[in-house]
Each structure stands twice: as C-alpha cells, then as structure tokens.
C-alpha cells in the first residue's frame, strides 16, 4: 500500500494555533539562533569585564565601511518585504525584481566584509592578537555564514524555486515569508553586532 501522504497545515494555518507548519518551524529555529548569538554576546560581556585592557573598535576596525554595510543590510530587509508584498499582489515580475535586489545587497555586504577582512589580514590583526580580535572574527564570521546561508535560500527562491508559483502560489508566498523572517533576523543580529564591536569604547 503506497498511501498518499498529505501533511496537513503545510500551507494553510491550523485554526487553533493560527500558524502553518513552516512558520512555526522558522520561529523555533530563530529561537535557537537567539540562543546561539546570545551565548556569543554573553561571552563578549564576560570576557570584556574580565579583561584588563580592551581595544576600542572604532580605532582598529573600519567603522565607516561597517556603517555602510549596516545600511546595505537594512535596505535588503526592506526589499525582502517588498518582494513578499509583490507576491501578495500577484506580481511575479516585481517579486523577482525585489528578490534580485535583496540578493545583490547580500553580495554587496559580503564584498565589503571581504575588503574589511583583507585589510585586517594585511595588518596582521588576526584572532591570535587579542581576545577582541578573536571575538570580532568569530562573531562577524558566524554572522557572515548566516548571510551566505540566507543568500543561498533567496537565490534558490529567485531562480529554480520560483517555479512553484505556477503550481502552488500560496505555498510559494509562504516560503518567501519564512525566508524573510530568517533574513530579518540576520539583519537584526548585525544591528547588535555593529555598535558592540565597532562603536563601544575600549578600556
């Protein structure tokens, strides 16, 4: 017997919870991400309070580039919402435009990050120089991996994944919403990282 498997609520909301499966799934996943970055921020606090000296980020890091990157990521969050809204208005072409912009912003972010890293390598500012540099590379590196992950998902949804629009538009729109939640989270992490690493004074 090869029963046809139909997982309920993978598209529509379950009335008593008000959620479809993937949305609950991504919220749970984000909760675990909060714990991941929460642990890193806590480590930052613990290491900093325990240290006798601590570098001032704005003196050894390139806070101007990072500021640009902050706006790039915020911009990408906005285009991400627009792409979702475009689908809600049944406009696939507009969706592709905004999703394309989102991916481009992601690329821009990584390029700028790459320039920043390259300059650090050049000056020998490596994780083994100080706890500050170590946590800088760990946190921005992990965040960068999250950006790459998000871009792979977004790129897929922009390209081959968008075929689903023709067959299951509701489900496709949900996917964009879920990918968007993740993308906003990645953005949010950066918004905490930026002042913590680049702006806080040293001691």
């Amino acid at each position, binding site marked *: 017997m090869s029963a046809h498997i139909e997982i309920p609520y993978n598209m529509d909301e379950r009335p008593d919870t008000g959620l479809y499966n993937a949305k609950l*799934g991504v919220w749970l996943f984000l909760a675990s991400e909060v714990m991941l970055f929460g642990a890193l921020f806590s480590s930052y606090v613990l*290491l900093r309070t325990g240290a006798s000296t601590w570098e001032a980020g704005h003196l050894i890091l390139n806070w101007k580039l990072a500021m640009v990157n902050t706006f790039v990521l915020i911009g990408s969050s906005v285009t991400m919402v627009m792409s979702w809204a475009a689908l809600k208005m049944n406009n696939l072409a507009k969706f592709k435009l905004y999703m394309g912009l989102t991916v481009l912003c992601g690329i821009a972010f990584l390029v700028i990050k790459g320039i920043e890293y390259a300059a650090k390598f050049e000056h020998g500012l490596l994780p083994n120089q100080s706890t500050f540099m170590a946590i800088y590379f760990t946190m921005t590196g992990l965040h960068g991996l999250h950006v790459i992950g998000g871009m792979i998902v977004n790129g897929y949804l922009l390209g081959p994944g968008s075929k689903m629009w023709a*067959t299951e538009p509701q489900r496709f729109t949900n996917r964009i919403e879920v990918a968007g939640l993740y993308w906003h989270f990645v953005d949010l992490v950066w918004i905490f990282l930026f002042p913590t690493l680049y702006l806080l004074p040293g001691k």
Partner: protein
Amino acid sequence: MATDTHHHHNEHHDEPSWIRKYVFSTDHKVIGIQYGLTSLVFLFFGFCLLMMMRWQLAYPGEALPLLGKWLGEARMPGGVMAPEFYNQLGAMHGTIMVFLGVVPLAVGAFGNYLVPLQVGAQDMAFPKLNMSSYWVYFVGGVVMFASFFVPEGAAQSGWTSYAPLSIVTTPAQSIFRGQTMWLIGMVFLITSSLLGSVNIIVTIVQLRAPGLTWMRLPFFCWAQLVTSFLLLLAFPPLEAAGVMQLMDRLAGSSFFMPAGLVISGKPWEGSGGGSALLWQHLFWFLAHPEVYVLILPAMGIVAEVIANNTRKPLWGYSALVWASAILGFLSFVVWAHHMYLTGMGTAISAFFQTTTMLISVPSIIILTALILSLWGGSIRFTTPMLFALAFLPMFGIGGLTGLPLGLATSDIQLHDTYYVIGHFHYVVAPGTIFALFAGIYYWYPKVTGRRMSETLGKWHFWGSLVFMNTVFMPMFVQGMAGMSRRMYDGGEAYLHNQHVLGFNRMIGVGAWGLGLFQLFFIINFFWSLKRGEKVNDNPWKATTLEWNTPTPPPHGNFTKIPDAYRGPYEYSLPGSDTHKDYYPQWEPDHVAKAGPKETK
C-alpha cells in the same frame, strides 16, 4: 491541481527504489529505526570502551589479554594501557554514550517513531528535514569514530572538554587531531538535534489529530515536547562554545586561555586574556538541561508502560505534565551546581543551591506520581513492566544522591569523586537505559508484528538489575572515601584509597556480568524478528493512537486519520466490564462501551 501533478508522479514512481525506501527514506518510522539501530551500535561500542577501562582499573598495569596486542604499540605499549589511551577511552565513552547513544535512541528513535503515531499523524511535519537530521547525526558519529585513528588518537579531555587542557592537548593546528575532531563532530550532532527538535515540536503542535487536545496527549508526547525545547534552546550555546574552542585550537585565539599560563615548564605563547571558566559555563548551560534530555523521554516511556500494565489511568496525569514543564524551565538555571569548586562566591552559590533544591521538587513529583500509579492496579509483570518498575527505585537512588551534590558544603567533599560517577550512572544506566529497554520490549510488536520472548526478556532483566547495582553501588562508597574520578591507575597511588581499591575488581566482574546478560537481549532482538509470537494490532490492549495502525504501520501509518474521543489512559473505568477493561482513544463512545466485543 496539486492532485493532478501527484497523480502523474505516482504513475512513474509507484514503488520507491530500495535506496529511497530504506536508506534515504523520509518515512518517520524508517528514520526512527535507522536512529535506533545506529544508536544501539554506538551504545555497544561505548560499552566496549568502558570494558577496557574497567580492566585497567581492576588490574592496573597488567597487559590486556588478546586485545592488548591488537590495539597497537601506541595505545597499548607491551599490551599495557597507556595513560593517554585511558583518557581517550574515558572521554569518548562519555561522549558516545550521551550524544551518540542515549539521546539519539530516546529522541531520535523513540520520538521519531512514536510521536507521529501517538498524535495521529501520517508523518513528521517536515519529512525531508527529518531525513537530513538523521544523516547529519550519522556524519557526526563517523567523525567521532574516525577520531580514534588520527595521530595521537581521540579526544582526551573528558566528555566535558574543559579548557585549558582541551586546548593544549595534541595542540597541532590541524583538523586531524582528536580534540578538534571532537569539536567538529559535536557541531554536526548539535545541528542534527536542532533539526530534529524543531520537527518534533512542530509535529506535536500542528499535527495533532482532531479531538486530540493538549490534555489528551499521551505523557510520552509531553516528555518529548519538553525534551525538544531543551535541545533547541540549550544546545546552541555549546555550539557557540565549540566554535570558540575551534578558534582557540585552529586560529590561535585565547577565548579560554588566561594570560600567564605555564605549560610543561614553558610559558604559553598566546595573547591570553581569555577565561577558562567561560567554557565551563557554556558547557554546563547545555549539559545540565542535557541530563533532563536523558531522563524525560525515559519518564515518558515508563509512564506509558505503567499505565498499560497496571490497567489503570496514570495517577496525577496533569501533575506529571506540569511537573515536566516546570522541570524544563528550571533546568536552565541550575547549571553552575557543577562548578561549586570554582570559587564562585557565596551569593551565586546560594542561588544555584536554591534552584537545585527547587528542581528536585518536580522530579520527585514525577517519581511519586508514577509510584502511586501502581497502587491498587492489577499489575501484569511483563518484561517491559519489569524494566519500568525497576526504573523507579533506580532513578530514585540517582535523584536522591544528587541532593548532597547540590549543596555546596557536601559537594566540596564529593565533587570529582566516584560518588558523582555513581550518582549520574544510577540516573542514566539503570534509570534511562532500563526505560529504553522497557520501551523496546513494549513497542517491538508494533514495529515488527512479533513479540519478543518473555523468557529471554526476564533473564535479561534480572541479570541486568543485579549487575547494574554490583557495578554502581560500590562507587558511592569509593567516592565517599575520597577516591577521585578519571585516575587511570584506579586511584592506586593514593594512600587514602587503599581500603576501597578492592571494589575496582568487584566492579570489573559486575561489568562482565552486565555485558553477558545483554547477550540475552541481543539474541532475543534478532531471534524474535523471525520466530517471535505473531501479534495483532493491539497486543497489549492499549489505549493510545499508535495501536490503531496496521502492524507494522505502512507508509502513511493510518488506514484513516483517527479522531481522539478521550484521554490517553482510560483503563478499568467504572462500568467497563472484565472482557474489555480499556477504552481506546480512537473509539467513539458507542463502540468503546458496547458489549464484550474486543476490537481487533
């Protein structure tokens, strides 16, 4: 339109290929069995590691017969165990038993197989994700296993991987070093647990069958739900810590390395400025919730088996539910009771002592409710029930011996002694592992269509019960005498241990006995596959939804998605007659309560 495409699809792929069906399957039951078999293999492997350690402890410095030569000069020079190898065995025994054995069996296997059945769903909420979580676990296991074969062998710094030791041992900046591979393996295992726990939570929240309200959910599912939340929220900090330790080992950073370290007479050349205690905090922030990950699914299994075999509703079902939820919350705020000796100061210590005493309350509520459930029942002493019954006092001993550890005054004496080893093994070995055995005997008929042999099962049980206690009871005595854990000579070098060294030999014999009696289980497991008594769909006359499926359940599980008409444990209610003392969840009143006819 969706049905159209599926129809088309079906014509070509009616029968999935062997590989899709048994290797890369998305069926939660196949995945559950994959998890189950893999974790049983790892449990066996972890047990073998322990047997070698126990030989060394019982007869320190004596050549190991047979194996000694075979393991090679590096590990066993002249057939005698090298201290470094002993440390590898210890670290990997703990790691394998916890992360590759018990948790994947309790959550990966039992959770995967049973949660969708008990909530009346056709599969997990995300079948493909489910498959990938198994394979990520598998890769993590392979990495851990392979680490025995890299230069200088596997990780040697305990399952807790305390820094700075874990960073200065085999320090080469290569990924092919034991500790580095341990960290990489952990990242895989953590990722797998995250995927798995998201799936279990979404399945329970979203896919409950019509009528299956929260308070009609079997306690097993509640236990899995709380467990999954613990995995979801406690594991990421260890992942962060693992990444930081990787940085320390590979990129030369000093997250966990304080300034001014002198190692083997040489000043350590790092930037310093890190904190060794930070690792301990992050580790125990995971590892304390982790111990409840080890125990909650066990409690879930025991609850199911007890209700079924006492033919009574569980005593205090809602107390059980609330207690496990509170246990879940509190388990996040007790972690530093593993760290009283780190000089944390009285205020912080008082906080963690208080929370530790508090968390004992829900533990005891659960244990009490399970014991009271026996009261007045007409108990069927089946093999699963024997294991479930033994779980109660064994967990009791484990839990009660935890209390002196939770109070700093007594913990100063007991910390890092064999007493701690005795404590947690009582909870995990004759506790959790007995519960897992109970679960295997209990659900085996549903999975295979055949019952396991009761005779072999009883041999297995009584032997295990006797030898478990032979192994672990003496550890309390050794520990109270002051014998430290993790000594590769079994503590021989210290005067104060001399009068308790004899126990090492007793424990060694006990471990052999314990291993021997597991043969009954292994034989039974395979023999019953072919020869076990054939059973119908509900051989234990049980009430929860998994017994409403064909046996073994096909892909898609139910012939028709069931409705849940009542709570999970409606046994022997007033008015039910002797022919049929149970009202299954899936039968509407007019069927359940009509006449003596048995349901199929």
